[in-house]
């Protein structure tokens, strides 16, 4: 089963939840799609590392062949090409790699070169296979890395946990597209609720079965719990605010591996997720 863990807001506990769920699963694959700021590997400290460069295609001009017709520059929707002072300039940073300029150059003066934007790193930590996408700093878009991560993700019986980036934009959609179930992580603040609403809208748009895990729960009024109740989101787990858990987590230690109490917490959460996925599959079958 493929479980995506997401939240609109950052810092609610996506990595905490996905890392620990993977750690208590017998054999699991953990995929870090937060390619701008990947943190799961800091917890797993994977061994036997292998890395693969991820590249995009960027146009390359042969100035001998270019006759300055500007067809490419006019075509490009992203203004990645300009013909200035008798020379074709290419702005790699804004290029979307659509290939149009190469396709439509009447002089065949444009070719493509590969440009590295980051890596996909894989390794093992105990029984967990850890796959991490890492975008190079200064690069604008991690979407190609996420595409690669998702292409390589097994679709079989294995437990796959996908740690998504914050937000609800294109990069998050890529991460949840093939998920069987989405875990929405929320924290009990006004900000947390506002952003929970956004990801809730997103998973509904994609018709993904989903449930919420409330993290950092305090005594008293919990606006996130209230939101779930009002909007029919099933709460599949609550993790109380806990100083010891916070300390383990801030030291990048995997709570479920360090302490039996937390192993219990995440084992029962995983059990709950499994039941939810089965229920969702049954409903899907009936349709």
């Amino acid at each position, binding site marked *: 089963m493929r479980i995506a863990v997401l939240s609109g807001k950052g810092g609610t506990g996506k990595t905490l939840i996905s890392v620990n769920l993977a750690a208590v699963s017998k054999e699991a694959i953990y995929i870090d799609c937060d390619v*701008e*700021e990947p943190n799961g590997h800091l917890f797993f400290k994977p061994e036997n590392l292998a890395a693969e460069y991820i590249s995009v295609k960027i146009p390359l001009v042969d100035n001998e062949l270019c006759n300055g017709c500007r067809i490419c520059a006019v*075509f490009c*929707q992203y203004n990645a090409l300009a013909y200035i002072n008798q020379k074709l300039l290419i702005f790699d940073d804004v290029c979307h790699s659509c290939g149009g300029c190469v396709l439509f150059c009447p002089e065949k003066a444009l070719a493509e070169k590969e440009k590295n934007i980051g890596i996909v790193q894989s390794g093992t930590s105990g029984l967990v296979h850890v796959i991490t996408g890492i975008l190079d700093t*200064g690069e604008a878009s991690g979407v190609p890395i996420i595409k690669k991560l998702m292409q390589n993700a097994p679709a079989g019986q294995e437990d796959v946990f996908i740690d998504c980036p914050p937000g609800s934009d294109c990069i998050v959609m890529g991460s949840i597209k093939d998920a069987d179930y989405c875990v929405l992580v929320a924290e009990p603040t*006004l900000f947390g609720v506002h952003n929970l609403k956004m990801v809730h809208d997103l998973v509904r748009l994609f018709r993904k079965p989903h449930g919420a895990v409330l993290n950092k729960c305090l005594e008293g009024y919990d606006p996130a719990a209230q939101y779930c109740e009002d909007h029919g989101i099933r709460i599949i787990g609550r993790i109380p605010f806990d100083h010891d858990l916070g300390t383990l987590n*801030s*030291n990048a230690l995997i709570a479920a591996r360090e302490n039996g109490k937390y192993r219990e917490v995440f084992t029962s959460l995983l059990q709950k997720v499994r039941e939810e996925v089965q229920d969702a599959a049954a409903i899907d079958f009936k349709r």
Partner: protein
Amino acid sequence: MQQLLILSGKGGTGKTTIASAFIKLSNAKAYADCDVDAPNLHLIMSQSDEPKRSNYYGLSKAKIDLYVCIRCDLCRQNCRFEAIDSGAGGIMYEVYHYACEGCGVCEAICPVGAIKLIPAIAGELILYRGDAVFSTAQLKMGSGTSGLLVTEVKKQMTSVINDADIAIIDGSPGLGCPVIASLNGADMVLIVTEPSVSGISDMERIIKTAAQFQTKIAVCINKYDTNIKNTEIIESFCEFRQLPLAGRIPFDPEAVTAINTGQSIVEVDCLSGQAAREVFDRTMQILVGNG
């Protein structure tokens, strides 16, 4: 007008909490929320006036006219974004809206002119003009081009006010296009970090990104007392990299209470609010060059 941008790399370290405190303390006449993907600043900066709302058009999206389409498949073969599906029986060609990046290859390659690029609304720009100018936006779910919208948010702010002393800009997490767009034109970046291994890793990556823009960078450590050892690691890292420290803010449950009632931490009497005042004073000194 000096632009002070608040960033963090990691989410949830307290960007908006600090930004709202700074707006109150500086009595800023201009401020903006550049976290267009998950904006929150408006929740705490309550406004009495109705804002001006305008549509934000991002990249256009391709649309196929099936009455004209001859099923030649050229569009699908040449789309790098795998945004075209040949549909039921391979004859009902359609564009997968969320995958389309509006490049126009399909439109240009279609031999019968069956494909057109149609402008698409990708979000909403929101401008408040009460006692101060507050520019914000909300990206439509699943849209790309958040960087362009960030640029529009900043433009919207500077188009109506340019003589304020300072503009406080709440940034977004991460280090990709929205962050890069917000860095453009910023005079100083305050990085709000937290003493966790994740926070430190993300801080190092955002500093690397911000350094390419040659703006002033300062660091403040939020919830510093949740892990003193890591706080010290951050402080020695900053010393080593010669980055000025703007201060420490303690973990404070009253901060959550303040935020949940729509108040900034400097509007209530609490420890984090007091610390935020010191961080603010220090940040202003660094900004004007006496750091």
